[in-house]
């Protein structure tokens, strides 16, 4: 993002600040907020039975006629070049069809780099893929072997001999800090924020804390391995891909391989977890290229090690957070600076300071992020990028300040909540953080907490309570198209090239369509996961649900207009204008006089139509520019620490959320809990171990990278204010990522309360507590 874009965005914001609400497409609240029927019900997910029976189709289960199987070979050095590559033995091995290396790989350009709004791009790395003998990071793909069976390909891959010439590589975080870069922007926000003289305010503050917090690399670790099946038919390309970027991947492959967009179809009906990791990486390109060279369909399923090698995760970071406060605890200085990794060929800045800008009032601010460059697989976004680690640092610091002041940490937070955006002065679209805190504290029983650390002990176990705040910005994406087909039998189909990775998209959009159209839930089908459907943006930034709600509601408006046209002069609603009718009770109904109603079946029958189809995209998401829009959480934790072993057992977690309308409490609770569990993992066990001497990841397996297992996960309570956001479709804001931030701090703060030990480096492993 350039300086020019920064200026453009802030001037658009200024102008929009003056525009009355009704001038905006999203100006008046969505009328459906007041008319929920199916929305808000705890409907079980519609694809649940398919998934629970094992019949939901995932990518690597695809079998195309003549399909072959690929295995990748990864570099074992970090920087250098291939000196000798001998594939003779591999090529002679039984069943082998192709050994693809930089020598015979088709010459291709660079994958268009992903951005939140570009439907033509999905890449994470601007490095060439097998175009030359250069090795730029450890684990990079250097060859692919294609054979008749997976076993043959796996075996032949062991026969490829490669010698490298090694060159020095940048692999040490501390060394690279000297050459850190400072970007102008972090996503669409200005990077450097300086309000007042925060360092001076800190020095003169009555109470102050100033510490450094460290967080490691993380990997997404979706249980489904990345998989692709690619087949060429002339210049038409069919790709089954496990992806959260269906349309951008199709478009990017088309431009990369020089074929028309319409010739590429990407199918991805079910994705076995994404969390930011299932965008476009080298494996899709290699598979498509191999299918072209082999002249046969090719299936590639990354190994678990392969996922670690070529799919980047969350960047490690080192953050300084300093807070100064007056005698009453009101913040006078908020300083949040730090370093994370982002190589020049990567794109994702790990925006850990963005949450800080909106969380608390302060007399002064000093905020800036710096990026160090290492020779690594590029980092990318991982569930709640930025906020997860940013909230760990800031919310630990707030707890430290509360301790210094001998003030209850909930009370300290409440004293500093802003009533408008602390930096821009923009109004919040909806903001009931205070209520989330007080409701959560009450339900959790926060008043039981002993302020003095290390005082509650039962035998070997020390008990502690802690809390932390989280936030996540609202996002809605432009370009979310929805096709709506209404049939004469009164059923409707909603279709779009969006994604189902476990968020419950089909379920919630079916509920939404039922209410929007005034039809029973059973009459709605939702079809997703195919680029042949109308285009939808990536599933990212927790934006898919509201983006589709906006698209579907625009389509419903078009449907209303079309039906009004078809209704004809004999209709009970004849003569009414679009603004005077709405879709309800299985037809069009007069707003002024609900007795005037014309059913969908009747309208279609009279018009002699079997169905009506409309397609529309949601309005431009201008609300994001006019308002400060955030969801917030108050997280509470109760845990035990063994005084003997340092083992931490989390006994209770409670999340109290302020995140707009809850569309489906059952699936929403699942999303929020899931996010919290990822936060639990980051607090206690998760760490991608990186060998700074060699630049190699040392624990590329689920046996050595510990994600929470059942025994680690306590019963998790979730609750919400449920207050609709008047500026968003259905009053909803995305919740897929909201669960995570705040959890690690709540756990670290509870560990402090239990033991008196302040751990500022994640994960909080046993050695740090002994």
């Amino acid at each position, binding site marked *: 993002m350039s300086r020019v874009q920064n200026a453009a965005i802030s001037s658009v914001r200024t102008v929009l600040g003056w525009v009355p609400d009704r001038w905006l497409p999203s100006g008046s609240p969505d009328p459906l907020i007041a008319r929920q029927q199916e929305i808000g019900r705890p409907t079980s997910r519609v694809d649940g039975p398919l998934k*629970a029976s094992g019949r939901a189709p995932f990518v690597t*289960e695809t079998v195309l006629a003549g399909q072959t199987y690929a295995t990748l070979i990864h570099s074992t050095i970090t920087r250098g070049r291939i000196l000798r590559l001998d594939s003779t033995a591999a090529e002679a091995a039984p069943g082998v069809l192709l050994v693809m290396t930089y020598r015979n790989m088709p010459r291709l350009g660079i994958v268009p780099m992903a951005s939140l709004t570009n439907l033509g791009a999905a890449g994470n790395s601007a490095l060439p893929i097998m175009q030359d003998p250069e090795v730029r990071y450890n684990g990079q793909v250097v060859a692919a072997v294609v054979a008749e069976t*997976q076993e043959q390909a796996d075996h032949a891959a062991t026969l490829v001999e490669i010698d490298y010439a090694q060159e020095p590589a940048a692999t040490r975080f501390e060394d690279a800090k000297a050459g850190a870069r400072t970007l102008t922007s972090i996503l669409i926000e200005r990077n450097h924020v300086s309000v007042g003289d925060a360092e001076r305010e800190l020095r003169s503050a009555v109470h102050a804390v100033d510490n450094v917090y460290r967080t490691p690399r993380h990997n997404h670790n979706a249980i489904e391995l990345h998989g692709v099946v690619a087949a060429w038919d002339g210049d038409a390309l069919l790709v089954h891909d496990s992806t959260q970027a269906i349309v951008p991947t199709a478009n990017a492959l088309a431009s990369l391989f020089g074929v028309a967009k319409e010739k590429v179809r990407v199918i991805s009906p079910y994705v076995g977890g994404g969390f930011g990791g299932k965008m476009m990486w080298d494996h899709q390109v290699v598979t498509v290229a191999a299918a072209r060279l082999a002249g046969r369909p090719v299936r590639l399923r990354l190994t678990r090690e392969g996922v670690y090698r070529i799919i980047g995760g969350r960047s490690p970071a080192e953050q300084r957070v300093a807070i100064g406060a007056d005698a009453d605890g009101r913040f006078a200085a908020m300083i949040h600076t730090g370093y994370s990794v982002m190589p020049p060929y990567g794109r994702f800045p790990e925006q850990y300071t963005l949450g800080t800008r909106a969380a608390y009032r302060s007399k002064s601010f000093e905020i800036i992020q710096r990026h160090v460059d290492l020779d690594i697989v590029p980092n990318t976004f991982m569930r709640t990028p930025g906020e997860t680690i940013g909230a760990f640092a800031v919310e630990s610091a707030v707890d430290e300040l509360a301790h210094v002041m001998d003030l209850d940490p909930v009370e300290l937070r409440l004293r500093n909540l802003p009533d408008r955006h602390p930096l821009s002065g923009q109004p919040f679209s909806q903001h009931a953080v205070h209520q989330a805190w007080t409701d959560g504290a009450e339900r959790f029983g926060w008043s039981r907490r002993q302020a003095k650390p290390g005082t509650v002990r039962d035998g070997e176990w020390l008990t502690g309570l802690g809390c932390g705040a989280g936030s996540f910005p609202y996002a809605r994406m432009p370009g979310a198209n929805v096709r709506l087909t209404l049939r004469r039998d009164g059923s409707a189909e909603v279709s779009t090239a969006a994604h189902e990775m476990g968020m419950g998209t089909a379920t919630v959009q079916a509920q939404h369509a039922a209410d929007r159209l005034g039809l029973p839930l059973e009459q709605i089908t939702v079809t997703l996961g195919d680029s042949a459907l109308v285009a939808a943006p990536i599933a990212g930034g927790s934006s898919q649900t509201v983006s589709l709600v906006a698209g579907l509601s625009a389509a419903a408006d078009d449907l209303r207009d079309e039906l009004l046209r078809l209704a004809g002069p004999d209709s009970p609603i004849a003569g009414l204008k679009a603004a005077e009718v709405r879709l309800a009770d299985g037809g069009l109904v007069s707003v002024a006089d609900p007795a005037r109603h014309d059913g969908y079946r009747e309208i279609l029958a009279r018009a002699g139509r079997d169905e009506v189809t409309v397609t529309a995209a949601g309005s431009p998401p201008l609300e994001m520019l006019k308002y400060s829009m955030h969801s917030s959480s108050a997280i509470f934790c109760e845990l035990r620490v063994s005084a003997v072993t340092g083992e931490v057992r989390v006994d209770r977690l409670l999340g109290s959320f302020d995140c707009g309308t809850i569309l489906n409490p059952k699936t929403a609770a699942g999303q929020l809990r899931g996010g919290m569990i*990822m936060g639990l993992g980051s607090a206690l066990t998760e760490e991608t171990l990186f060998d700074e001497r060699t630049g190699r990841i040392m624990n590329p397996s689920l046996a050595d990278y510990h994600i929470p*297992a059942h*025994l680690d996960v306590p019963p998790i309570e979730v609750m919400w204010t449920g207050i609709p956001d008047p500026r968003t479709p259905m009053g909803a804001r995305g919740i897929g990522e909201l669960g995570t931030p705040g959890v690690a701090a709540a756990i670290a703060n509870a560990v402090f309360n239990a033991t008196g030990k302040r751990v500022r480096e994640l994960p909080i492993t046993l050695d740090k507590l002994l």
Partner: protein
Amino acid sequence: MDITVNGTAVAPPDDARVSLLDMLRDHLHLTGTKVGCNQGACGACTVLIDGRRVLSCLTLAAQAAGREVTTIEGLDPHPLQAAFVERDGLQCGYCTPGQICAAAAMIDEVRAGVPSYVTADLSAESVPFSRDEVRERMSGNLCRCGAHNGIVDAILEVADGSTV
């Protein structure tokens, strides 16, 4: 010797390197059994051999010769499936068949009185179903979406209600 898969006899694969997992998925197209690691670490590939849970990725197909393999397709319909859906013990659904197969066998293990790491009295005749017992015994089945609470609820409901 044949392998019995969900009641049907099948010949072991010619290639001795083929795992039970790959035989099920790639040869027999019984793709309800999932693959999350191929390293014995995630549990997504859990199936039953002679009623006991095993990781099919760590089992050669040949090892199942003369034995009865039951996959999610063979369990279907099972009360755990409906309970998982009702309790939202799934999100992406990828770990789900493995969780269900593991849970089905696990319930039998508890009923048979096999103790676990969290069982208080190792010498007791019977082991009571409890949340902690289920959590401990299901810890070999990872779920990255975080459906743990619903999974445990679903298993407890089915086990306590003795609907199996």
